[in-house]
């Protein structure tokens, strides 16, 4: 099996792929990016917090790309146990019959390409849980 690298550094691969956030030790605010301080309380220390992989769709859209022949994609905000996560809804038809507000979803990962060194980049999305 090829070497793998996550699309973003807050995606942990392996047997139980999941997301990990930087959690402010003072106020508990969670962030997925590299931090200088806390936007909520200006705190300077963070711990790592695993994010649950089950969630609920709080908002979504279906983007029709400008390039003809490119498939629509479904950006969404997923509520994962109280932490908002951003991702596409995948593994279902990109229409408002198959994607609905409040639907239950779960994290899934998938390859997004392989570089010249043979390393496979792996992204994540959320798929219907039922």
């Amino acid at each position, binding site marked *: 099996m090829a070497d793998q*690298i*996550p*699309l*973003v*550094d*807050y995606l942990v691969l392996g047997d139980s792929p999941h997301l990990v956030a930087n959690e402010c030790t003072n106020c508990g*605010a*969670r*962030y*997925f*990016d*590299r931090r200088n301080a806390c*936007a*909520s309380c200006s705190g300077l220390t963070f711990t790592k917090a695993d994010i649950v992989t089950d969630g609920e*769709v*709080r*908002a*979504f*859209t*279906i*983007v*029709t*790309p*400008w390039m003809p022949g490119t498939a629509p*994609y479904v*950006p*969404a*905000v997923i509520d994962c146990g*109280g*932490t*908002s*996560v*951003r*991702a*596409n809804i995948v593994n279902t038809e990109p229409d*408002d019959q198959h994607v609905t*507000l*409040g639907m239950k979803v779960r994290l899934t990962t998938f390859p*997004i*390409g392989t*570089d*010249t*060194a043979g*390393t496979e*980049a792996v*992204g*994540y999305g959320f798929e219907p849980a039922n």
Partner: protein
Amino acid sequence: MANDDIWILGINMTKFGKHPNEDVVDLASEAALAALADAGVTMADMGVLAAGNLMGAAAGIGQQLQKQIGQTGIPVFNVANACATGATAIRTVIMAIKSGECDMGLAVGVEKLSGAGMLGAGMGAAASDEWTPSGRFGAVSGLEGKLGTDMMPGVFAQVGMEYGHKYGGTSFELFARISAKNHSNSTLNPLAAIQKDMTFEQIMAEPMIAYPNTRAMCSANSDGAAAAVLISGEKLRTLSKEQQRRAVKVSASVLTSDPYEEGCQILPNVNTLTRNAARQAYELAGIGPEDLDLVELHDCFATAELVHYDNLMLCPEGGAVDFFESGAPFRTGSTPVNVSGGLESKGHPIAATGIANIWEICHHLRGEAGPRQIEGAKVGLAHVIGLGSACGVHILEKSGL
């Protein structure tokens, strides 16, 4: 010495739309000279200039403009706040006057966008030969389309959907009907980029950009400029009766940014900063939403208009759908919203937008809005929001002088 009493003495907007033969300085000059003429003053009377041009934010549009219409040596502030850039220019001039540094100033916003494609519709970074994590997410690839979207149409679509999820009652058709209201209003505005009436069925049949917003439900990229001359009340009272009569009182001028809330760095929260700005503005002006005779709000997308009914407290919390269904925001309703046609049809030359919406309100308060006049308008509110985020709210009142 502070001047808490601020007025708009003159204001102008160019026709929005395609201006292939004018550059940004031409457009800014046209609006600025017309605003000065409207005010009955000249560049020599100005004590400060604040200007914005987002696409050329590093290029000093203020000084470029001075070099065409009057280099008088006054302080120039080039400002940028995304779609709230024009409102920020006005705020800056108002602060200069309030701080006692001058008694009159000019605010200008200008943009050339026609042919620029959908706002924020950029593609991600090109793939490199070897995956290399970079940036604050350690991303090995551009994330647009792979992990949601940063493009405006998708962001504001989700903003509307999130409201629907929270309070219910929204649908594709509802958003199309909001858009139809604005397109209908635009037929009365000769300065609008698009003046075509459209039914909600026609709007729904337009190409989908980001569900539930079709092309007709997105703000139209346009060229245009707008400019305003601000003055202290003390100075205004030394001018002619006619100038005093046409002046419009700035009862509140507020700028906010988005405070931290859970999820705000996942999907921009355009609600709380608007609500904060509105609350501050109502308090400063000593009026409530029920006193407003008209509102120009930032309908960069049809989905945005809905949430701002609520954010500006034009309705009870969660009541935006009912507010729309009641007919309140129509021209004939109790709180006409976007009688100019809104960004969806009037156009959205980014840095000009935050002054153009104030121009629309002034036009009505002065009784000069012609066929689209809201009769007897005495108080209006202009709202603008730029992602990032910045929100500007101005409450304006008819002169009693």
